[in-house]
């Protein structure tokens, strides 16, 4: 299913646009369920046995699986269809976004007086990991088009892309993470929260809903998404503060925040930038504060095949730092930034939209964290769950 957005900037779709979006969502579901099942079957029936015959052992990691799978027709079919389906996500929303530009501006103008703020920095040059490539095959990446266009493309595109598995306000990740933290650490009441690389603030909003008294800030390097996200939050009656800022050079004083959060952000950064981001998170956290990241699970916690499956995006979805990130150890990343090993934790949180709040409460209360599940953790599939980790600052 293609999701209908919940705010006033939701597009007024023509019958053709609605049908096109529905088709692309359905095609993605076909790829990620049916063709993905064929991919696994091909690996188990053909590719892995052939590799074992040639090498006397199974593939050791996702890289070896990738090389072995390249010539298999199941991989070729899955990949060619998935790449085109991804391009179709953005292509199907682009005409609507362009047609409704004026309407969006009028809505934004009316919402401007609502609580919340947007602080842009025209002197900030977006980094090359945003500007040099079409991230996620999205033409123009996060900075393309006019005014808020890239934000609108992202919001509407994500509604098609997510197949209904990322929440009815595209906020399932943020909602699940916030619920997990609230249940696991009921005494933790953050007064100031920062979301790094927030794009349109879709996963920033749930923190305001979970902690309504908290002051919430979101930063990103791309102005179109921030401008769109600021309006999007105001239209939903939530006071958020958006800043155009780079996560590796935050413009906040030391010890400003109680919680520094990110979701699906770290894998978009190069190794050097990522290390700086962790150090900045440590710097702006007050003692007793929490750094929390929702991300893809590390390769070390997955089978060789499932590591390969997730790392597909690194090579074919314009996310060049994806595998490099997933090869890293989350705990080491935290330790290198000044956090202590005893303050580190990682977990798997069920999707709140699918499993419900009670399942999150059970997961948070359990002495034994849920394990990373190869087929559902971090993957848009039935029973999706999210991998998270973090560390407390002393």
């Amino acid at each position, binding site marked *: 299913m293609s999701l209908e957005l919940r705010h006033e900037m939701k597009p007024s779709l023509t019958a053709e646009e609605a049908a096109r979006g529905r088709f692309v969502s359905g095609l993605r579901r076909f790829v990620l369920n049916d063709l993905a099942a064929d991919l696994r079957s091909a690996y188990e029936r053909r590719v892995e046995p052939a590799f074992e015959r040639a090498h006397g052992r199974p593939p050791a990691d996702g890289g070896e699986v990738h090389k072995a799978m390249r010539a298999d027709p199941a991989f070729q079919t899955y990949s060619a269809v998935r790449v085109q389906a991804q*391009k179709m996500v953005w292509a199907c929303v682009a005409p609507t976004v362009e047609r409704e530009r004026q309407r969006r501006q009028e809505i934004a103008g009316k919402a401007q007086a609502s609580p919340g703020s947007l602080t842009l920095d025209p002197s900030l040059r977006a980094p090359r990991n945003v500007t040099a490539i079409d991230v996620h095959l999205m033409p123009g990446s996060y900075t393309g088009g006019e005014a808020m266009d890239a934000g609108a493309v992202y919001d509407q595109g994500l509604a098609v892309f997510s197949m209904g598995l990322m929440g009815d306000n595209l906020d399932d990740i943020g909602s699940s993470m916030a619920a997990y933290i609230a249940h696991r650490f009921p005494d933790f009441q953050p007064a100031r929260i920062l979301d790094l690389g927030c794009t349109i603030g879709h996963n920033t909003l749930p923190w305001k809903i979970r902690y309504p008294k908290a002051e919430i800030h979101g930063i990103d390097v791309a102005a179109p998404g921030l401008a769109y996200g600021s309006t999007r939050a105001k239209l939903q009656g939530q006071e958020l503060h958006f800043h155009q800022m780079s996560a590796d050079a935050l413009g906040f004083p030391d010890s400003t925040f109680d919680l520094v959060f990110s979701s699906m952000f770290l894998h978009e950064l190069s190794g050097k930038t990522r290390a700086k981001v962790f150090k900045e998170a440590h710097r702006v956290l007050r003692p007793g504060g929490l750094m929390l990241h929702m991300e893809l699970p590390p390769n070390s916690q997955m089978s060789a095949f499932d590591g390969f499956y997730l790392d597909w995006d690194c090579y074919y979805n314009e996310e060049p730092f994806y595998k*490099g990130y997933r090869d890293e150890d989350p705990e080491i990343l935290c330790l290198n930034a000044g956090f202590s090993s005893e303050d580190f934790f990682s977990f798997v949180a069920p999707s709140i939209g699918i499993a419900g709040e009670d399942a999150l409460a059970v997961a948070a209360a359990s002495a034994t964290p849920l394990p990373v599940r190869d087929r559902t953790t971090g993957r848009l599939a039935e029973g999706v769950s999210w991998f998270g980790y973090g560390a407390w600052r002393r």
Partner: protein
Amino acid sequence: MSDPEDPLAPPAGAPAGIFGPDGRPRFFTDAAVDRFVASLLNLAAEVWIQEERLAALEAKEGGGAKDPEVALKAFIDRVFAPLRES
């Protein structure tokens, strides 16, 4: 050796030949097949759009409304059956 900080450099460990001369991913031995797949999917989208709009018109004329999500799944399963592993 490529610069690991450069987003345009091939990702570390990328198998040889995964990108075509245009720098885009390539999956089949003959790059024309990759382009053909893309065209086929675009065509399927156009056919579905006509199918959904026709169904809406028929429903208006008393033909009975069908759930478009159910109809789409049947359409995709039918059209793309040859892509599945047997």
